[in-house]
């Protein structure tokens, strides 16, 4: 066996079917062939099946009149609107319920996560019981619990439960005062936006002064009072251009205000209570992951308890928490599709439910729905990755 220039056998005795490159090419072609064949098989069958069942193909249905009503709409919609419009209504409902639930679940989750670390034994154990119950029960059951078990027991409109701040609770859902903005409301709004910008500038200036001299000017209190105070003053000067349409309890019915349907309320409560349990565990994991030496070192430096948490523990804990929160938000958005089980008109309910039943175009409906969730997932994770990079540990 002679040895070639690069130290490899030049007249290799390896048979061609034992050459790794040829083998790899062969297996990849085989796999590709299998995938293509599978897709062709599915495509061919689908076309012939649809033809036999007289089901249309393509997206011509998009502009056809829908002919059904949707109980909760963020944009104007009626039975005369098109299927395309119904799609947007469903998508907006999904996004609304996801955003609202993410907001509340984060707050509740952080609180419970911190409570689980409380030095008070009862508080910690109660938080633990909460987490274990909600983490280990299927979300669907939790939704049924809130929808049927709790909201199902609400009284008729004429016997509405009155909550503080003019909120009524009855079979029609949660009736809240509806804000009505006058024309002059633009002035306090301008005042608010400009003070926020001014506050940001002040904050930036304070950081620069601190970097130069080591002393931080106390701009926080001034900014806060300015951001709250000035818009309030402008608000009253411009003649209080904000009023509320308060729901009124009539003899047989309640009217006015804005109504949050029970489906929406129970979906938000269900998603919030379920996801908060997971977020609480993530927050706890993040805080526990910070070594005790960090706390002791910052105490030795003379930082107060609040400063220790705000300046030392939290920035490090966030590095652990943020990637975990990212996946919780993603799964919450995907879990919001369970609203279909309690009749919340989200994307899955409207599109893969009603529209699919009316048109029979299963392939289009399911593909569009899946693509929307895929896009939402990718967008959320892109945003959270960006945020994660900002809080991540900067290494060499």
């Amino acid at each position, binding site marked *: 066996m002679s040895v070639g220039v690069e130290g490899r056998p030049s007249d290799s005795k390896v048979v061609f079917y034992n050459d790794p490159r040829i083998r790899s090419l062969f297996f*990849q072609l085989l*796999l590709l062939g299998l995938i293509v064949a599978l897709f062709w098989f599915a495509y061919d069958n689908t076309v012939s099946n649809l033809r036999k069942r007289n089901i249309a193909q393509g997206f011509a249905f998009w502009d056809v009149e829908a002919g059904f009503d949707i109980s909760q709409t963020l944009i104007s919609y009626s039975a005369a609107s098109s299927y395309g419009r119904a799609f947007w209504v469903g998508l907006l409902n999904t996004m609304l319920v996801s955003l609202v639930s993410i907001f509340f679940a984060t707050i509740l989750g952080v609180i419970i996560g911190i409570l689980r670390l409380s030095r*008070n034994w009862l508080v910690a154990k109660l938080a633990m019981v909460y987490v274990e119950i909600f983490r280990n029960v*299927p979300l669907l059951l939790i939704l*049924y619990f809130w929808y049927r078990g709790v909201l199902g027991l609400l009284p008729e409109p004429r016997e509405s439960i009155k909550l503080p701040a003019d909120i009524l609770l009855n079979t029609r859902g949660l009736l809240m005062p509806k804000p009505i903005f006058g024309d002059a409301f633009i002035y306090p709004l301008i005042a608010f936006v400009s003070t926020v910008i001014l506050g940001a500038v002040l904050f930036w200036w304070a950081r620069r002064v601190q970097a130069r001299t080591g002393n931080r000017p106390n701009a926080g209190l001034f900014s806060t009072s300015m951001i709250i105070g000035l818009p309030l003053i402008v608000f009253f000067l411009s003649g209080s251009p904000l009023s509320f349409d308060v729901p009124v309890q009539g003899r047989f019915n309640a009217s006015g205000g804005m109504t949050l349907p*029970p489906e929406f309320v129970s979906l938000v409560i269900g998603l919030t209570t379920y996801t908060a349990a997971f977020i609480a565990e993530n927050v706890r994991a993040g805080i526990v992951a910070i070594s005790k030496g960090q706390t002791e070192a910052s105490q030795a430096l003379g930082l107060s308890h609040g400063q220790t948490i705000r300046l030392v523990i939290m920035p490090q804990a966030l590095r652990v928490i943020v990637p975990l929160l990212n996946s919780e938000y993603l799964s919450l958005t995907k879990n919001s*599709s369970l609203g279909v089980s309690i009749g919340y008109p989200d994307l899955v309910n409207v599109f893969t439910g009603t529209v699919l039943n009316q048109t029979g175009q299963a392939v289009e409906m*399911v593909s569009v729905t899946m693509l929307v969730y895929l896009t939402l*997932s990718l967008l959320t994770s892109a945003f959270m990755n960006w945020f994660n990079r900002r809080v991540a540990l900067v290494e060499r």
Partner: protein
Amino acid sequence: MSGQAELKFIRSHFSDPLPPPMRTSGIFHWARENLFSSVFNSVLTILILFGLYQVIPGMIDRLIITAVWTANSSKDCNAELLGHPVGVCWGFVNAHWGYFVFGQYPEHLRWRPELFFVLEALGLAWLLVPSIPRKDWAMIYFFIIFPIVAFFLLNGSETLGLTPVQTHFWGGFLVSIVIGTVGIVISVPVGILLALGRRSHMPVARSASVVMIEFIRGVPLITVLFMANVMFPLFVPEGWRPDPLLRVLVGVALFFSAYMAETVRGGLQAIPRGQYEAAQALGLSYWQMMVKIILPQALKIVIPGIVNNFIGLLKDTTLVAIVNIFDFLKVIEASLNNPVWRLSQRLATDHRH
């Protein structure tokens, strides 16, 4: 005075010893430390104890003391008819127990699902209890022998003399467990294959695995179930008519394979490169390297992740109720509509269905 400071104070007698600490052990010390360590904590403790006192006696009363344990219809649980306050109607659960567990599985054939439960419990115990030896046989039993036996046991087979039972008679806990088991048995091997594909050097295998994993992980399970339910029958020739339960099983298995793949990938990435290189230096082929060297180590690392996936899978089996499979949750819901057991009180959210 050179260098010596003037002494201002010299202690002339011993200071009194400090009193011993009140208690360093026992229940009072524990309560002081954990319940009443500060004013704020004391207030919290008292508030919580008061809240528990408000809730727990009422719960015990409703769940146990005034609860009705045996009943034949909703009349036996009606407080107005009975003339005394009534708590939870356990009689309802009692009367429906068989339906909750087996659905409409024929009563004289229920020994078959019962045997299935026993076989499954044996397999799981063998797999999960560390002190039982021969885990390799346990794997073969649980992933190959048990599924085949279970299929003939539940579905029946004329040649074996077991009366066939069609899947629309299956229901309740049985269906939940069947879906969970099929999900586990299929998602582990398929997940391993997908994970290997994702780490493969072959571009086609890698991109096919990545697309499939990321696609499935990006969509909710319910849309995959809808796809399995309405699109899967379109994908196959018209005569096949896949069974509704089978469609859902395909969807669930596909969905959890993607999640399992990501878990396994974590394990594969945790194995040091030297292990791969050593295996290659020994002249092992790709599959020998994976099966004999890499996977045994990788899978051992990700056992907690796999168990987490199983728990998630069991919880998510409830979703099949939405596509009209009579799982545990759905049969309970269905039994609520039984006219004999109708609730005396109509729920506010009932009219919407």
